[in-house]
């Protein structure tokens, strides 16, 4: 039975299932589901520690955001450990991380964002007409609608009206934000 676990064929599928459950919040992926689908010849008692080991490895790699050098070093160390992984398995894990890294990192980042985020934005320009008795007509205003929400909660909508003066005032502030971001992103 141990031979089944050492093979690397089903490992790719297992890592996908683990990623879905651990990072992407997929609810229904149980130990038993993974075992019966991918390692039907293996008993649950033997499968459990194997699953835990793979989950641990995947989480370590994702949590540390390993680059390829770190990944190779880490996986090599795992192959040398007592009760570690085989070099075939290391190759499967490496391939998996390389192709799923971006998506997994994105999910992890979203897991740590608990405050309201900007979900959507739309705008239009309205030509406000004043009374025909007034001297000024057709003062344009910009109407912007922001969709804001916390993870797992319904959106809230915020509607704002801007005239040209207000828009320019806000643009000035936004350019300050951008400058700040540029300074941050500059290599140390």
């Amino acid at each position: 039975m141990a031979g089944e676990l050492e093979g690397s064929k089903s490992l790719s599928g297992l890592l996908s299932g683990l990623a879905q459950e651990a990072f992407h919040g997929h609810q229904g992926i149980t130990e038993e589901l993974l075992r019966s689908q991918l390692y039907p010849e293996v008993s649950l008692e033997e499968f459990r520690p194997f699953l835990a080991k793979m989950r641990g490895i995947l989480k370590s790699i994702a949590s540390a955001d390993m680059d390829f050098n770190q990944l190779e070093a880490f996986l090599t160390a795992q192959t040398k450990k007592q009760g570690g992984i085989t070099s075939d398995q290391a190759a499967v894990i490496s391939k998996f991380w390389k192709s799923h890294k971006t998506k997994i990192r994105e999910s992890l980042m979203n897991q740590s964002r608990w405050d309201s985020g900007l979900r959507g934005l739309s705008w239009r320009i309205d030509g406000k007409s004043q009374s025909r008795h007034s001297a000024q007509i057709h003062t344009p205003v910009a109407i912007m609608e922001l969709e804001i929400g916390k993870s797992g909660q319904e959106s809230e909508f915020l509607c704002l009206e801007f005239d040209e003066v207000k828009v320019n005032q806000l643009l000035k502030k936004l350019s300050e934000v951008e400058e700040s971001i540029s300074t941050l992103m500059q290599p140390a």
Partner: protein
Amino acid sequence: RPGPGGARPLLVAGQLIDFQWKLGVAISADSCKSLKLPCVTVALKVADGSGNITCKTFEMTVPQFQNFYSQFKEMASVLETF
């Protein structure tokens, strides 16, 4: 009539009376030890027609902020052409 989004109920537009921002970097989290995630947090003060003021805060990742900024610039340039 529908709001700019289309099917949602009409919202009465408020006036933005204050806009505060900060740029932070989330370094580490329970779910992810090495995060290094820059985040722009914005605090708005909005006055409705009756003078009631509400405060709203929300976050944006850098790409989201870039989009927000470019939408604003586009809106400004269209407004200018009227």
